[in-house]
């Protein structure tokens, strides 16, 4: 694997390998000094054209725990504001001698474009509506820690599927690991075509909840109402929000997930977000370990990792 652009590139085997490796890095993260020298001498750059403090911090924490140097290319204060092209920016960064570039961009496909020009490793940290592969990996890891396996599990992804990079990556990853995915959303928030998507579609959340092991809620962007995709956020919450009353339909072991940041009171009620079966904090914690595994696989020398059992 030379880059991580899409979950699809990994295949089930690649995902399994990363999840196995993540176990080791969870263990590292739990040490008093959560650090190993696996990527000492390597430099990882965060190139974030779109703000995402949590994803950027998660990657940077992961890189630092592996002993890598980190740099942040902050688009807001850079020459990009003066009209520099993505290609020129990437070439400038590479000229400083970097090993990996973690890219976040509001436009789908930018990591693919950069991978055609760059000599360093490219990690997709979210591109437009398209993919967010490390989010899918941390979601798989979190489900596995809670439920043992994804095989045969039923997972409902609820909300704005159409504009969600998390949903696109999750559908691929969950189904590759043997889960069934049901998408629950009003038709205006589904992609125009689901041809080739290994999913079923439901429009009634109440019907769905009692039958699933995982309910994965997506963030509802407030502007969807302005775009006439929804009559109102109130109606959305009434039909698709996970209220305490609705949450009662969930099975005893079922878990609630959300990629954050949450709109409490819109897609998820505040009380539900604080229930013990809501695993959002686990998702964030596991995110660091998963990203350590990804960076280690992409940048590691392949030699035995000091103090870490690759499993």
């Amino acid at each position, binding site marked *: 694997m030379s880059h991580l652009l899409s979950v699809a590139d990994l295949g089930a085997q690649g995902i399994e390998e990363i999840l196995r490796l993540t176990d080791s890095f969870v263990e590292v993260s739990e040490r008093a000094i959560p650090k190993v020298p696996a990527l000492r001498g390597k430099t990882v750059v965060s190139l974030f054209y779109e703000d995402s403090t949590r994803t950027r911090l998660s990657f940077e924490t992961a890189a630092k725990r592996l002993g890598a140097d980190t740099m942040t290319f902050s688009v807001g204060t850079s020459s990009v504001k003066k009209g520099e*092209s*993505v*290609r020129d920016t990437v070439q400038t960064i590479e000229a400083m001698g970097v090993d990996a570039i973690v890219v976040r*961009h509001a*436009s*789908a*496909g*930018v990591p*693919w*474009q950069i991978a055609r020009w760059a000599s360093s490793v490219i990690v997709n940290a979210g*591109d*437009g*509506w*398209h*993919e967010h592969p490390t989010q899918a990996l941390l979601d798989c890891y979190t489900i596995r820690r809670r439920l043992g396996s994804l095989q045969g599990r039923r997972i409902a992804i609820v909300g704005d599927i159409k504009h969600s*990079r998390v949903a*696109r990556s999750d559908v691929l990853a969950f189904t590759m690991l043997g889960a069934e995915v049901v998408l629950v959303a009003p038709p205006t928030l589904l*992609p*125009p*075509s*689901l*041809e*080739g*998507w290994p999913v079923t579609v439901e429009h009634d959340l109440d019907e769905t909840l009692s039958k699933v092991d995982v309910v994965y809620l997506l963030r509802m962007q407030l502007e969807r109402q302005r775009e006439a995709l929804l009559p109102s956020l109130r109606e959305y919450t009434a039909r698709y929000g996970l209220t305490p009353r609705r949450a009662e339909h969930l099975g005893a072991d079922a878990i609630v997930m959300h990629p954050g940041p949450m709109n409490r009171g819109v897609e998820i009620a505040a009380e539900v977000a604080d229930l013990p079966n809501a695993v959002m904090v686990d998702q964030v914690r596991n995110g660091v370990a998963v990203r350590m595994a990804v960076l280690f696989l992409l940048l590691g020398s392949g030699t035995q990792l000091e103090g870490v059992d690759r499993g």
Partner: protein
Amino acid sequence: MAEAAVLVVTGGRVVDREGERPADIAVGADGRILAVDPSIEPGGAQVLDATGCVVAPGLVDLHTHLREPGREEAETVESGSRAAALGGFTAVVAMPNTEPTVDNAAVVSQVLDLGKRGLCEVFTAGAITVGREGEQLAPMGEMAALGVRLFTDDGRGVQDERLMRRALEYASGLDVTLAQHCEVESLSRGGHMHEGAWSSRLGIPGIPAQAEELMVSRDLALVELTGARMHFQHLSTAGSVELVRAAKAKGLPVTAEACPHHFTLTHAALAGYDPVFKVNPPLRTDGDVAAVKRGLGDGTIDAIATDHAPHTQETKEAPFDEAPCGMVGLETALALALTELELPIERVLALLSWQPAAIAGIADSHGGPVAVGRPANLCVIDTGASWVVDPARSASRSRNNPYAGRTLTGKVRHTVLWGEPVVVEGEAQR
């Protein structure tokens, strides 16, 4: 043949609207054909060898973007006309979406003046509305007086029905043709590729086929209302082709064009997010490609037009949703038609030469027939030659060619413009 020939094209098979026959062609100093005979003795005339080749009326492109004035870094009239000549075109109709817009006599004159130095004859379309803003009719009369025969807001469709009705009525009084880029913007706004399986997978906002079909349908209703003549540009969907087919069956005075990329590429080409494949109307489905091919074969679509749209590498390398639409096409159109359409050469040439010449209103000088007294606007095609597309060898200033590395069959060997060999053995002469 009392007058001495200055140029003789020997050994070829002439193919024009009259049919096919082996013939040599002699051209006089005035750029007109002196003789068409089975065998002509060249004497002291320059000889163009056409042995084994088809000698055809020069090709005519109804839809070229030359970018001048305003975007000379992407193309100039001169560079675009050289690319056209290398592609076998002896005439192109430049689209008016330049900076400034071709929406008045002064800009028309400027483009026509620039065209005089070109390697093909450059005609220009005029805008239907001022600034292509869809609000006020452009002075079509003053532009028509300078020879403009085709009007379009290309790059955009005229959104307002009432204004389009008035434009059609006004144009019919000038004996000019309105051409429409069919796109209902309220439906396509924000889209960057065909809306369907691939846009859903790639997470790119889509443009539904209906954004085109609704305007085709609306304009057909307006043609019925006004009786005016109308030309549909770059049809890309099965539904549009069907609408035009039904309109022609009803006897409406409409014509249509399709572009090579709409019968050779599908939206699957966008899987790698390469903006070189970003074009408007967008690349569509296999079913749409098949429908466009059928339309070209059965006469529903009258012309192949390139929509040659040069863009610099820098602008095309932007993130997909920021990159401009368009691809170059003048040098590959004929070969793509010969390679990808299973049509006889006469039909391909009808689509690329005499039919577009008629739509452009330039049939008196382009599109043949190859006959004594006619202007010697010719191209010589080696229909069996196989070649690999290399954007770096293009005469265009831009390299946004989606066919890089593709092997095509059929190559232009010579192009003759008003008796002057502007391309000889595949090389531009100036």
